[in-house]
């Protein structure tokens, strides 16, 4: 930093004077004024131009003889480029000049005795030596007793030609030109030119009168104009601003806006450019925090918006600073000045109240003599407005966070998180700044992941939903924040409601899980029932039925036997899977097929068998639709099985057996079982599959049961599925030997990355794929995930696609 500008309050002089007096390094021969001291301590050399010019004409002063007197014309000029160096012997600077002087004087003097003398003095020459052959030097000295300076040559003589022609009456006496020393400039070391108050650059002009500077014996007073343009060659005096730990510091907050988060100690060092301490300290330091943020709250979601205050996020406070730092009243900790200087070094502290705060730190040293130095960041003299925290010029995000947060390279408003890639919709609705400023989760501060999509969950169910959330987290690959508490999401589920100047793009929602005793199973609920699953803005609640105690079921000895088509292990995780499944909906994942892909057996198929009263002898049992049955003595029988309107339906087990015969054999083989069966199940004949009324779930091609067997978005309830290419033939998961036991169909806790059918849906399976690949708009669930509430995810409504 060039110390070109300064100002000095008058009161400062006493401090510098004191410093001067007590300093053992100062020469004893003079007492300098405060501005002189600053110049002495700061300027090593001067370079520049000077000139002394004088021009005058008129009458010479009258002599003692009546009638004496005369006229004159004189011009002096000295122009030089000078270089002066510090010279402690004279308390100033001495050096040489390159240039020349010119002198032209013409006097016509009447002696009053009848003689007239014409004197001519001319001269011109260089400035290396004076008229006596000695080196011609120039000096800039500090005047004693005053805060002023002077400039003078060591010698005012150069060589010139003097000629004096006389006429006395009629006698002319021409003179002989004579080489001799002639004066060309004043020699005045008490010029008392004021030192400029705000710069070291000496530039201006000054009039100097000299009574005997002309070369004639009848010289009148000569007035020179001293013109100067001298630039200092100084040791740079600089104020270094040294925030301790600047590279690794980021702001933090306390528990609320009134609590202190963390602090940033800052040291100020007044130094010369060579690193040494100057001999004169600063009278005071003035510290300003500029453009300090006032983001509401302490983090993006805390406290609640109606409680969040917009107060300064970074301050200087008395508690964390020395008593010599005086905060300006009403300044909110944004302006402070030191008292009790002079100081070469000073330490103070910034206090943070927000996880995303920012400010600009400016410090100024005020010095004796009125000068001031604006501080700069240590090791970066271009940064006079120090960004706190350390950050890019166009950012409010601390570099320290960018250094360790993977992917934090974009601008503050960047929201290009792309892990998981999902539905090609980048981002999680949170800008880089918001991820950096962070959130409060269960009372603790957390940050978002710049390269990973963050999802926030308010789990009002508690531990019962933990394993489901775990499955969801593992499968989705999202960064799930599952411990959000009341007050950490807004009433309308927003997670980033505390925003102002920090980069903000989207009102991003979280997801709420609740226990709801009125729900069977679970659903990702929104009040219109019309919105597509995800992004989270679409789901008001995930409602889950209470996780009632299942320990007896698991502990009563079912072992690992398959039960109702589900292994005991599967049954134990069924509840967790429900939670995970619904959470997948909240981030835009659809079923493998639509609800319309359920198919029910129409016409209430019945088993028509020899057990029926009118069944023809020798006939084989079969299934028929739209059958009318009647009751006779407590048993149910089909109507005429030979009726031509009978609609037959064929069902085979997966190992190719006729299920009608299997069922008949089972019932007929044990009369008691048969009777007991009818007694217990009067509605049995309404349908094949043991539950009355609504019929049976038939999983259809590319419906909800289709696709990857292990995907948790696939369902697993269907007992029947159509034989490929047939309208009246079906396969069943029931087994012939045990007609009420279903073959296992696994439930998945993974998420698929392809609509391709696997396991029971594998196309190469025997007798066939049960439900085939997922619908062409569905499946590949991992690539349906969308978290960003500003996104418009692909509409996978099958009916709409068909239109």
């Amino acid at each position, binding site marked *: 930093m060039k110390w070109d500008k300064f100002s000095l309050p008058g009161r400062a002089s006493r401090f510098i004077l004191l410093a001067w007096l007590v300093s053992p390094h100062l020469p004893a021969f003079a007492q300098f004024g405060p501005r002189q001291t600053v110049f002495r301590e700061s300027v090593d050399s001067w370079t520049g131009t000077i000139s002394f010019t004088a021009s005058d004409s008129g009458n010479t002063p009258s002599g003692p003889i009546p009638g004496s007197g005369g006229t004159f014309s004189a011009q002096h000029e000295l122009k030089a480029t000078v270089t002066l160096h510090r010279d402690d012997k004279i308390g100033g600077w001495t050096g040489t000049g390159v240039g020349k002087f010119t002198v032209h004087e013409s006097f016509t003097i009447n002696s009053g005795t009848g003689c007239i003398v014409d004197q001519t003095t001319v001269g011109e020459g260089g400035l290396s030596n004076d008229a006596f052959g000695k080196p011609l030097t120039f000096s800039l000295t500090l005047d004693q007793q005053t805060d002023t300076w002077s400039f003078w040559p060591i010698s005012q003589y150069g060589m010139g030609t003097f000629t004096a022609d006389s006429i006395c009456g009629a006698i002319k006496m021409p003179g002989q030109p004579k080489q001799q020393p002639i004066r060309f400039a004043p020699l005045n070391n008490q010029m008392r030119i004021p030192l400029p108050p705000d710069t070291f650059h000496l530039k201006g002009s000054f009039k100097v009168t000299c009574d005997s500077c002309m070369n004639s014996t009848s010289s009148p007073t000569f007035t020179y104009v001293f013109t100067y343009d001298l630039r200092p060659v100084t040791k740079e005096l600089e104020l270094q601003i040294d925030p301790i730990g600047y590279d690794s510091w980021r702001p933090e907050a306390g528990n609320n806006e009134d609590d202190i988060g963390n602090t940033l100690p800052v040291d100020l060092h007044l130094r010369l450019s060579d690193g040494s301490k100057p001999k004169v300290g600063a009278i005071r330091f003035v510290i300003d925090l500029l453009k300090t943020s006032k983001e509401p709250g302490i983090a993006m979601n805390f406290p609640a918006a109606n409680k969040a205050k917009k107060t300064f996020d970074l301050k200087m406070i008395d508690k964390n600073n020395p008593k010599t730092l005086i905060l300006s009243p009403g300044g909110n900790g944004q302006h402070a000045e030191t008292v009790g200087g002079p100081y070469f070094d000073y330490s103070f502290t910034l206090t943070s109240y927000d996880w995303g705060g920012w400010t600009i730190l400016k410090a100024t040293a005020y010095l004796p003599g009125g000068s001031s130095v604006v501080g700069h960041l240590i090791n970066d003299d271009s940064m006079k407005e120090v960004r706190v925290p350390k950050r890019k010029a166009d950012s409010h995000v601390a570099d320290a966070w960018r250094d360790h947060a993977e992917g934090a390279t974009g601008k503050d408003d960047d929201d290009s998180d792309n892990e998981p890639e999902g539905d090609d919709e980048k981002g999680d609705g949170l800008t880089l700044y918001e991820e950096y400023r962070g959130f409060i989760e*269960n009372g603790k501060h957390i940050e978002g992941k710049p390269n990973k999509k963050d999802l926030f969950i308010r*789990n*009002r*169910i*508690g*531990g*019962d*939903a*933990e*394993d489901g959330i*775990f*499955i969801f987290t593992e499968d989705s690959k999202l960064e799930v924040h599952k*411990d959000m*508490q*009341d007050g950490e999401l807004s009433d309308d589920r927003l997670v980033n409601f505390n925003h102002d100047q920090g980069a903000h793009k989207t009102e991003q929602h979280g997801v709420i899980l609740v*226990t*709801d*005793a*009125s*729900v*069977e*199973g*679970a*659903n990702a609920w929104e009040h219109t*029932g019309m919105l597509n699953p995800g992004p989270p803005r679409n789901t008001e609640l995930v409602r889950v*039925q*209470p996780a*009632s*105690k299942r*320990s007896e*079921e*698991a502990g009563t000895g079912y072992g690992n036997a398959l*039960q*109702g088509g*589900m*292994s005991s*292990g*599967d*049954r*134990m*995780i069924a509840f967790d899977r*429900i939670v995970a499944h619904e959470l997948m909906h909240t981030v835009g994942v659809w079923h493998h097929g639509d*609800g*319309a892909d*359920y198919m029910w057996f129409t016409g209430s198929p019945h088993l028509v068998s020899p057990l029926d009263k009118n069944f023809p002898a020798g006939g084989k049992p079969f299934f028929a639709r739209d059958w009318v049955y009647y009751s006779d003595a407590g048993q149910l029988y089909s109507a005429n099985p030979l009726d031509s309107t009978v609609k037959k339906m064929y069902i085979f087990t997966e190992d190719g057996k006729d299920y009608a015969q299997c069922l008949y054999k089972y019932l007929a083989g044990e009369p008691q079982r048969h009777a007991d*069966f009818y007694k*217990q199940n009067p509605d049995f004949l309404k349908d094949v599959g*043991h*539950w009355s*009324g*609504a019929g049976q779930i038939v999983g259809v091609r590319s419906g909800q049961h289709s696709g990857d067997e*292990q995907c948790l978005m696939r369902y697993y*309830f269907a007992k029947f599925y159509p034989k490929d290419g047939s309208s009246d033939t079906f396969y069943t998961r029931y087994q012939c030997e*045990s007609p*009420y036991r*279903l073959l296992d169909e696994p*439930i*998945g*806790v*993974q998420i698929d990355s392809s609509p391709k059918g696997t396991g029971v849906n594998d196309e190469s399976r025997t007798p066939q794929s049960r439900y085939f690949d997922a619908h062409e708009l569905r499946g590949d669930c991992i690539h349906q995930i969308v978290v960003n509430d500003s996104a418009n995810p692909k509409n996978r409504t099958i009916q709409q696609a068909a239109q």
Partner: protein
Amino acid sequence: MKRVYLAILFLSSIAAAQNWPTLPTQSPAPGIALSVNYSAEPHLMRGWPVFARARVSHPQRSLTQKSPLFFLAPSIATMTGSWADAVSLRVTSANGTQLKWAFQRSTPILTAQLQLTPMQSAIIEWQMLPEATRGIAPGQYFVQAVLNASGASGWNGTVESTRVSVSVGDEPTTLKDADRYTKTLLIVDTAGSKLDEAFSAADAFNKAFPQNVPGMELKARVLERQKKYREARDLAGKALEKLFTQNPVPKEPPVPLLDLYYRLDVEAFDPSLVAK
């Protein structure tokens, strides 16, 4: 893979896979979570039973990793006890005063050592009887599950669950259907081996609200525990019929009810299971 992922209930010692690498002691901490009355913010009526369930999960949960194993051993002081002795419930009032509520573990856990793979979690359940809850002053309370392990082997340390916020009050004169269902569910879930008591509560609710599907399902579950499989199956079937009649194409099928019905279907008609 998923079959290895189990919420282990009253876990027995696992002898398998002894060559798996084990989790170093002292780090990192396992997870622990709690629900009270199936919720993280239950409203507890005085005179109702209370049911609490804590879940201890592997510190490095993963659906794909089988190791390292996590061990939790009995405390040094009670070497003869169970790992579950290290887990307790901490109750505090709104002003932070620690209280003692009469929680009892629902079923004894006798297994000495808990061993979890990253896929697994373990469950501990407690209950409090109606007589005990009558003595709780109305107000706001917080309940946390605390795992404090100082075993001679296995993981040592303390970890606590997120707080469950419990508001305690008197049962209103008129209960909402959902609250009455919850009360019934709590009675059933805390009845233990008193199946008649459980049935009485479920049946009373079912009779009072014959169209309430969760009530039908609950009664069916009690009937199943009483080994009345066919009766249970029929009731579950009626519940399904009701649901599907109302909405043949639901957005989400009633998964737990379907699972129950399918299981009962087998239990009701498979000779190997049906009690004659």
